[in-house]
């Protein structure tokens, strides 16, 4: 079924294998010369690699090897590492959830503490927060909102499922009990190294 590859085909194969970028037929000829039928060789190679883990593809007149699309997952193997959100991230998420869409300045006004950029990054990386356009006020600040993933992670069918302030009070979650313990100085506190502190 697979005929023994001739040297011209082998040369084309090797040239494409080592290439740093996709190659045009002219690029390939620079390496392998004119000693064969290049279109035929490319066609034969593409056929040969069609069902394999690596495919030869042509994109805009340039040829290159790439891994089969269905194998992408093995090349970027992800390892889950459970981590707990920092308090700053948790609070920022809560504010976005309750007040969305909100700008960073608004989050800071509500938290009474500056928000490090990294905090929002973490929430976006987690897939729970997304930029939701800009507010049409001077400075056009970016505004943030929660995502569908946020709802599903927290088991909410919509943001209206979030307990209201009255519910929180009834549950004792608004009691300022730990205020003294937190020792929060308020406005001048920056939670970590933030470039726009």
């Amino acid at each position, binding site marked *: 079924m697979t005929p023994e590859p001739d040297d011209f085909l082998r040369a084309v194969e090797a040239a494409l294998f*080592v290439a740093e970028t996709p190659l045009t037929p002219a690029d390939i000829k620079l390496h392998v010369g004119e000693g064969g039928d290049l279109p035929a060789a490319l066609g034969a190679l593409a056929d040969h690699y069609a069902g394999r883990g690596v495919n030869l593809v042509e994109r805009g007149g340039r040829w290159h090897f790439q891994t089969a699309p269905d194998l992408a997952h093995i090349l970027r193997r992800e390892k*889950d590492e459970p*981590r707990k959100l920092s308090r700053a991230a948790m609070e920022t998420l809560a504010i976005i959830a309750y007040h969305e869409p909100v700008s960073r300045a608004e989050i800071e006004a509500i938290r009474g503490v500056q928000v490090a950029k990294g905090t929002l990054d973490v929430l976006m990386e987690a897939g*729970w927060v997304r930029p939701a356009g800009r507010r049409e006020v001077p400075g056009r600040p970016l505004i943030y909102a929660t995502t569908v993933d946020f709802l599903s992670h927290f088991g909410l069918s919509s943001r209206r499922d979030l307990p209201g302030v009255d519910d*929180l009070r009834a549950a004792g979650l608004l009691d300022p009990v730990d205020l003294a313990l*937190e020792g929060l100085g308020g406005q001048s506190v920056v939670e970590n190294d933030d470039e726009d502190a």
Partner: protein
Amino acid sequence: MDDLFIAPAIPSPETLTVSFEAWEGPLDLLLSLARTQKVDLREISILALTEQYLDFIDGARELRLELAADYLVMAAWLAYLKSSLLLPRQEQADPSPEDLALRLQLRLQRLHAMRDAAARLMARDRVGRDVFARRKPEGLRLVKKALWRASLYDLIQSYGQIRARTQPAVHIIAVRPVMTLDEAIQRVGSLVGAALDWTRLESFLPPDLDAPKAKSALASSFVAALELARQGRLEMQQDGIFAPLYLRAAPPNQEAVA
């Protein structure tokens, strides 16, 4: 391949016009000379090699080449070895000159073997010279994906904390039901005159008071009684600590005295 590392060819000892930079030391020179014997190193004649070396050094000296000390040391050692090899057997020292010659031969073989091995190694299909890996591999990545853990409770608790921390605290003092001192003096003062004998303080309180107001009325009435007593308008009596407190109007004569 064998000749890959041979130092500049030595046509014959007499025509040497070569500097010592061509060799890495006496052993290297010896090996080069040995190779001119064109025999297997295992069959080399150490005696002949010694002759060659000493000739070479002599020739070099005549050519007024600068001689490194090591080459002269080797020359001296070889001259000693040569004379020992020529001596009758019974006068030989330990180790025997044959032994020394054998060791020198072994050393030359070893150096030659390693030189040959180096050449064969360098001639292999080397990555980046003869065979090539992909120049820009995409790379396999092990991405550590943070699986953030947070519960709905964490979320709402956080929100509660923010609200609790940042909402302005408004303290409203409830209007509490009290009987003022003035009221109490008025009431106790008017009622005590009507009482004939010792009467308990509680009897002076207004009827049908709810609990908070009753407490306030009792406290105010007590203070009012003290005030009225001070003014000499009534007398107070108590049999012991926490015993009932009795009031009655002061006798008229005492009031006159006061």
